[in-house]
């Protein structure tokens, strides 16, 4: 299972709880330790891996996703992203980590309203301080990659759901992040758009991008190389479908077909 490369994600004994006292809710707890307290979640994700995190609603998968995306901080435990312990970073450094190392794709697209597709994709580059000409060039390249070069001037309300999600994918990959984090990316899409978006993500992974995808659909999870299942805040199964260095299963199937 080990590829010899250092893992992109390394979480150790991570727990997350909300509330205080009797009302405390452990959204992430892992297996119980010998003394009955939560041990916390351990998870490694190797570079180039394609992990689907599955679980029913309330299983803690969104909490895990928020922690992995540095949008939320764990109650306890260590999180190393690309070798950096993000637990020790202040707000400004976390913003930098989100900007440089993580690309987000959300279920509800989360495009900035009233902004053209090109400007959407340029946004993370603008926050990274990239020059305007370079920004434009890279944003156009990303839009071309998702097949929306001809929609660069369109605003979110002029795009279909599938197109909006493809803009979001372009925006997520334009900074060449260490990891693509997708939270139910196909949850709001019809089956054709689902195939398009998943095809894009498969392609990115085939070119070496690490992908962590939250989903509750088996259809979608079939695209991943590894499937992690969460129940009540703990990992209950961790199944590898394809080796890390092989192409994603869906692409491999196409080749065989």
């Amino acid at each position, binding site marked *: 299972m080990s590829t010899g490369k250092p893992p992109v994600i390394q979480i150790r004994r991570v727990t997350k709880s909300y509330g205080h006292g009797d009302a405390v809710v452990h959204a992430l707890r892992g297996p119980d330790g010998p003394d009955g307290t939560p041990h916390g979640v351990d998870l490694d994700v190797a570079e180039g891996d394609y992990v689907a995190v599955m679980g029913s609603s309330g299983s803690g998968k969104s909490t895990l996703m*928020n922690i992995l*995306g540095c*949008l*939320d901080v764990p109650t306890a435990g260590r999180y190393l992203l690309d070798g950096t312990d993000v637990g020790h970073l202040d*707000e*400004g450094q976390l*913003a*930098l*980590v*989100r*900007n*440089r190392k993580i690309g*987000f794709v*959300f279920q509800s697209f*989360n*495009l*900035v*309203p*009233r*902004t053209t597709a090109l400007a959407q994709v340029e*946004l*993370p580059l*603008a*926050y*990274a*301080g990239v*020059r*305007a000409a370079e920004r434009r060039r890279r944003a156009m390249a990303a839009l071309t990659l998702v097949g929306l070069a001809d929609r660069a001037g369109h605003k979110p309300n002029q795009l279909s759901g599938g197109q909006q999600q493809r803009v979001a994918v372009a*925006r997520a990959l334009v*900074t060449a992040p260490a990891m693509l984090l997708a939270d139910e990316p196909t949850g709001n899409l019809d089956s054709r758009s689902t195939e398009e978006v998943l095809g894009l993500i498969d392609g990115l992974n085939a070119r070496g991008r690490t992908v962590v995808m939250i989903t509750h659909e088996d259809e979608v999870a079939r695209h991943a190389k590894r499937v992690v299942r969460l129940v009540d805040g703990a990992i209950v199964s961790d199944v590898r479908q394809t080796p890390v260095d092989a192409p994603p299963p869906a692409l491999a199937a196409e080749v065989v077909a």
Partner: protein
Amino acid sequence: MIAWQMIRFAVGGLAANKVRSALTMLGVLIGVASVILLLAVGNGSSVAVKESITSLGTNSLTVSSAASRGSATAAKKLTVEDAEALASATDAPAVKSVAPVVTTSGTALYGNISYQPGQIVGTYPAYFETANQKIAEGDYFSADDVLNSRKVAVLGSTTAKELFAAEDPIGKRITIGGTPFTVTGVLTAKGSTGFNDPDDVVIAPLPTVQNAFTGFGSVNQILVQASSADTTTEAQSDITRILMGTHALKDPTKVDFRISNQTSLLSARESTTKTFTVLLGAVAAISLLVGGIGITNIMLVTVTERTREIGIRKALGAPRAVILGQFLAESTLLSVIGAGLGVLAGIVGSHFSVVGIKPVVIPESVLGAFAIAVAIGLFFGSYPANRAASLRPIDALRHE
């Protein structure tokens, strides 16, 4: 480059809600325009007062009888003899000329036109120079006219216009209180001060007016011209000394007459208009403050409304400072544009006269109002901007 980007985001944010942005700007616009305009009105009235008082002549002194303070010693009225004593005094070099003045009122008739001038003044020819009254047409009456009590009169420009309209008044005969007067001249208009009209006057020789109206008793005032503006104090002490002699007074603290010079009148009126200006400015400043609160209000709404967008931006790696900058730029842009339009409105508005006062724009007030408005945008925008910047990305993203 990041700063430029922030301004672009801010412009986009404002353009998204045009009506709201315009209304917020209107608040600042009204604040700035009213500061500029009201201060200009206050300043305009103070300039007008200053001009009218200096037009009376800064080296003239007015001696008037002091009202008796209820003490046993009844105040002695001023008389023509007092004036003559002042005029003939050899040891008072600071006194240049003296003119006793009686004032009365009455109705003037010319043909079938009847008009009541503001004042009918009986005096000596020296009055014209002392009171800075210049002739526009015809001539002043002479000392000879005074000695012979001739029934002649010089009209102020307002009175002349009311009685004669387009006709030439020189040599015409008017009747005041049954006495016929021949008009010898018309004075140059001095312009209204906003309090009274100095041009609404009829000036005639002292004995003529006394004979016809007031009787040969006391005079209302004695107008004294000092030799120059610098010798008014000296002239004042000369007058005090001479009149104490004629009134047989010993104690200089208990005199029965009062000497006022135009400079003291000027400073008194000036302080009145200054209070007036400060009051107007305060009212305007409050409206500017209200405009600023409008900015805070609308920016808070904007931040709440765009919480999700802030979350997205933060997820994409927007640093706190950039979010702060974006919203501060938005509020400052509102105030800068509002203030700019307000300056424009204030300057345009100051070209119209307000209740008879011609506003005079104070350049400092334009700069000051603009700067304060911009500062208000920054200050009142900082609370909502700070609130936006300190949102946690996860909370902002979950916001519906």
